[in-house]
Every structure is written in structure tokens, then in C-alpha cells.
């Protein structure tokens, strides 16, 4: 085995430019495979982590009612109904709206989340990203106080909003008692949290709820509870005006659409690898033609057909091996660059691609296999040469 590798290297190094160009095809293919797969994996992991941070024991009920459409959306009645379902630990209604905000005379539309002040921390403290930078969460009895997303504190308004400052929402003053750390997600970072009742009063929507977060008691099946919530809501509402998801369902739905992306990525990468393989086959056929006489010499000096076959298969396999190695290396570099970019533009930890050892192993094995397969036909041609005619060439 070792001697075949030695001979292959010797043969390939004789025509360096050709060997490099041939390997380039495989390098591009494997680079594509490695970077695409690692991006795909990174995306899947990112999504999974976000939802897992939300908690797999949580169920989210959202109203499908659009703003301004008349009808019965989710209400406080639904909230108290869900509270009575067996297996429900606690229920936190939310009301979210885009409202008019004002700070130091500067007016801007701002996303406001209304929450039960007594439940705000329990609802969100274990959700990824919701960590306090300064101050405190909403507390029971809070009315005209607000907790800010990081960007609202930092650069949403022309001047920074600090603890103890007041901002106006729909014309009414709210004192800042807390600021969240940056999450990287603008939807979170550019929103503020206030008392749900206070917010609904301001908006004139006393009983309305846009979403309900339900936490399931330990030991209860999340899907069963979800089904009960759905049944209970269906009894109160005509037609479907709401969606009920568990975080697991969301993970599954998004994971499967990411799978599709990965397959498409993988397909594109696969095509480039096939092109690389054709390059190897082409070079190897040229080699066989050029080395016809040499094949005659090998046969005259006692090479069996299988030895000739092995010599050429090793050569094409070596193309695959080097292409694979270099491809994995470049794929790794690309993945690292993407991580840097993602950290700078999307925020830390949002997208982390990874070239795992098993991905590297499979990519290199795959490249060797592609090389050997590409070498089959040229090697067969070499084997089939008649020694007498080959010597005469």
C-alpha cells in the first residue's frame, strides 16, 4: 500500500501544473461541500438554540387577528380559561403594539410589550437574551414604569436613555427602571416592556391579548396540554382566530425547512464535486494515453493487471485525498470568516458554523472515493492495453 502511494506521488509530481489544476477541481467541490454543510448546520443549531432557550415546556398562543379587523381576538377570558386547564403551571398574557414613543422631544414609533408585571420575570428570565443589564424587572404594582431593550437605551433615540429617565408612550410618562442586555435580535432590542393593563388602557383595548405564554407543569405532556388549550379556545371562538404552538413544534417546522436548504446547498456542492471528478477522469485518461509505453514496460517487467489497476486508482485517489484535505482547510477558513461576520453584523452567538471532525472525515473520504471512481475507467483502459502494442507505442 505504502509503495503504491509513494509511486503515485512520484508520478503526480512529475507533472506538477497538471496535478495542481486537476486537484483544484476537487478543492472547489470539497470547499463548497464543507462550507455549505457547516453553514447549514450552524443555521439549524442557531434556530434550535433560540427555541430551546424559550423553553421546551412552554406553549405559545397567538392571535391571528390582524390589527384593525373587528372580531373577537384573544381576551382575558381565554387567559383565565387556560389557567383552569390541568397541567398548566402558569399563564402570562401579553399585549404588544406599535405605539408613539417620545424622548427629549424626539418622537418615534416603538414596539411596546405589555405584560403582567408580577409574571414578567418568570415568563422571560429564562428565555435567551432577556438578561438585565441594569435596574430591575417589572414588579407587581408597577404602573408607569418601563424596562427598555438595549437599543432603546443605546441608540434608538438621539440621546441615550438611562435609568431614572422618563420616556413618553402615547403621551404618558413612564419612568425607566430596567435595561436589558443586547440580544442581537432587533425585535427584542428595540422593544420596551410595560404593565399590560396600563398599556391596554392607553390603547383603549381593555380585554385584548395578542399572545399568551403558557408554562406546563413538570411531569405533564406538553402536547396533551397544547391539545386541551386548543379545544378550550375552539369552544369560545368561532373559526380559527389563534395559533397554538409548542416550542418543539416550531423547532421541528423550522428544522425541516432548514433541511430543505441544506439539501439544496449540498446538491450545488455535489455538482461541483462531480465536475472535480470529471477533471480527475480527464487527467487520468491523458495520463494513460501518454504513458501507454510505460504501461507496456510495467507489463513486460511483470506487473499483473491488478497491479496496473491499483497504480492508476491510487493516483486518482491521491488527487481526491489532496483535494479533500485542502478543500476541508479552505472550508474551515470560510466557516471561520462567516462566524466573524455573523458576530459583527448579527450579534454574538446568533450563527456559529462549525467544521466538525466528522464533517472533515466524511468530506475527505468522499473526495478520495470520488477520485477513485473517476479513476476507474482510465485504469480499466490501462489494464486492457495489450503489452506488445503498448511497448510499440
Amino acid at each position, binding site marked *: 500500500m505504502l509503495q503504491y502511494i509513494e509511486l503515485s506521488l512520484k*508520478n503526480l509530481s512529475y507533472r506538477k501544473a497538471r496535478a495542481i489544476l486537476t486537484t483544484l477541481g476537487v478543492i472547489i467541490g470539497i470547499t463548497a461541500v464543507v462550507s455549505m454543510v457547516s453553514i447549514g448546520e450552524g443555521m439549524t443549531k442557531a434556530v434550535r438554540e433560540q427555541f430551546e432557550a424559550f423553553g421546551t415546556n412552554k406553549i405559545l398562543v397567538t392571535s391571528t387577528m390582524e390589527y384593525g379587523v373587528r372580531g373577537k381576538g384573544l381576551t382575558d377570558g381565554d387567559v383565565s380559561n387556560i389557567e383552569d386547564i390541568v397541567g398548566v403551571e402558569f399563564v402570562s398574557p401579553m399585549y404588544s403594539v406599535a405605539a408613539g414613543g417620545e424622548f427629549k422631544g424626539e418622537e418615534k414609533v416603538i414596539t411596546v410589550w405589555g405584560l403582567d408585571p408580577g409574571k414578567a420575570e418568570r415568563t422571560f428570565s429564562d428565555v435567551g437574551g432577556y438578561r438585565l443589564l441594569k435596574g430591575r424587572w417589572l414588579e407587581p404594582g408597577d404602573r408607569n414604569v418601563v424596562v427598555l431593550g438595549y437599543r432603546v437605551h443605546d441608540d434608538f433615540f438621539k440621546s441615550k436613555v438611562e435609568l431614572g429617565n422618563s420616556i413618553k408612550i402615547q403621551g404618558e410618562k413612564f419612568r425607566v427602571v430596567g435595561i436589558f442586555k443586547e440580544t442581537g435580535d432587533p425585535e427584542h432590542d428595540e422593544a420596551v416592556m410595560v404593565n399590560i393593563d396600563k398599556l391596554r388602557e392607553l390603547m383603549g383595548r381593555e380585554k385584548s391579548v395578542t399572545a399568551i405564554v403558557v408554562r406546563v407543569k413538570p411531569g405533564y405532556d406538553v402536547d396533551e396540554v397544547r391539545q386541551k388549550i386548543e379545544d378550550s379556545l375552539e369552544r369560545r371562538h368561532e373559526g380559527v382566530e389563534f395559533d397554538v404552538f409548542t416550542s418543539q413544534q416550531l423547532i421541528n417546522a423550522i428544522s425541516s425547512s432548514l433541511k430543505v436548504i441544506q439539501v439544496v446547498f449540498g446538491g450545488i456542492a455535489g455538482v461541483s464535486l462531480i465536475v472535480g471528478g470529471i477533471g480527475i477522469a480527464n487527467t487520468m485518461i491523458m495520463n494513460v494515453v501518454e504513458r501507454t509505453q510505460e504501461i507496456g514496460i510495467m507489463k*513486460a517487467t511483470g506487473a499483473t493487471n491488478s497491479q496496473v489497476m491499483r497504480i492508476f486508482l491510487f493516483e486518482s485517489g491521491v488527487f481526491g485525498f489532496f483535494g479533500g484535505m485542502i478543500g476541508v482547510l479552505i472550508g474551515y477558513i470560510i466557516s471561520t470568516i462567516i462566524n466573524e461576520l455573523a458576530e459583527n453584523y448579527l450579534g454574538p452567538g446568533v450563527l456559529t458554523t462549525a467544521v466538525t471532525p466528522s464533517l472533515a472525515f466524511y468530506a475527505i473520504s468522499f473526495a478520495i472515493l470520488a477520485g477513485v471512481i473517476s479513476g476507474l475507467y482510465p485504469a480499466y483502459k490501462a489494464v486492457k492495453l495489450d*503489452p506488445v502494442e503498448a511497448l510499440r507505442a
Partner: protein
Amino acid sequence: MKGLDIVRLEGVEKTYLMDRVKVPALRGINLSIEKGDYVSIMGPSGSGKSTLMNLIGALDRPTKGRVFIEGRDISKLSDNSLARIRREKIGFVFQQFNLIPRLTAIENVELPMWFAGVPKVQRVKRAAELLKLVGLGDRMKHRPTELSGGERQRVCIARALGNDPEIILADEPTGNLDTKSGEGIMRILEELNERGKTIVLVTHEREFGKRANTIIKIRDGRIVG
């Protein structure tokens, strides 16, 4: 061990198919070569002497008749069995030298041992010895292009001796050499014969051909004397 036929041909015919026309190259050859003999096969070009040489060298199979090497009929053997016979029993010396240009002199000599699976240390040692034997002890790392014609032919002889074969088949070994180098090659071959190797020399150069113990003349695919 003189007296034993190392090569025997019985009623051997070889016909080539060229553009669907059958061209007879050999038309019924009967021939015996004794172990340790020094035989020259002489004839004009196109007489069939190269075809005969290929059959004796187990590079080709006869269309009709049988070829025996050390008493074994090789006319119906598979490609791989023929390869093994070439590897163990026969050493080729070609007019065109047929060295692999990428490999150094010593690597070229190693080749038949490589195919026979001789371990590297032994292989290199023996290849070096063989190169010294043909007087190229100081040219081992040279590539064929860096060697003169005579030197190349000596590398080729060293290679032919790699697996210590019984028979050395030399096809016009002096054809591409000047007289002096040619003479040198002939001397090496004759020395090998003195050491017991069976030498089969194909040539159209009378002077060299006449030096053999047995001379086989061939014309139009038949032995004429």
C-alpha cells in the same frame, strides 16, 4: 544442467488481423532452446522475429500451436499468469531501452522487484548491486535522459536481471548504439551467458548474431536455418 529445453515451440503460428485482413507473421515454428544456451534469431525486418520474441517472452499468445517455458504450456494462460512468468522467468532488453523517464536508474532497476513484492530494503540493495555489475555504480541517481545510450542499455540489462530470471531476451539491443557501446553491451550479455543465463538475442547485425552458439535464421515467418 544443459540438455533441458527451457523454451520449446511446437507448430506455432501467429496471425494478425489488420483491417479485417489476416496477416500471417509466423507460419509453423518448431524450436527448442536449451537452458544456458546463447541463441541468436536473425532475419530481415518483417520476417517475424519480433513476433517470435514476444511469444518466447510470454508477452503474447500464439494463434495456433504451443509454447512451453520450463516445460509449462503457456499458450492458454491468463494475462496475470503470463505476467507472473515474465516477472520470474524472463528479463527483457529492448532496442528502445524502454526505461521510465521519471524514475532514476536505480528506481527503474527496482521495478520488476517492486511488482514481485520484494521489500524495499532488499530491493534497493539488489538494484544497487546490479547497477555495479553493469558498471553504473556511480550513475544510480541519474534519470535516463542524463545517461548515454550505452548507459541506458546497461540500466535496461540490470533491470532485466532484477528477479534473477533464467532467460534474457534481447531485442536488437545494439540497434540504437554506436559500435563501441554496442560491443560493450554484447560483452555484458555474453558474460551473463557464461554465468549460466540463457540468452536469446534478436538482431539483424550479422557480426553480433554470428557470435551466438546457436543461430536461428527466420524469413517470412519460417525458420530457414
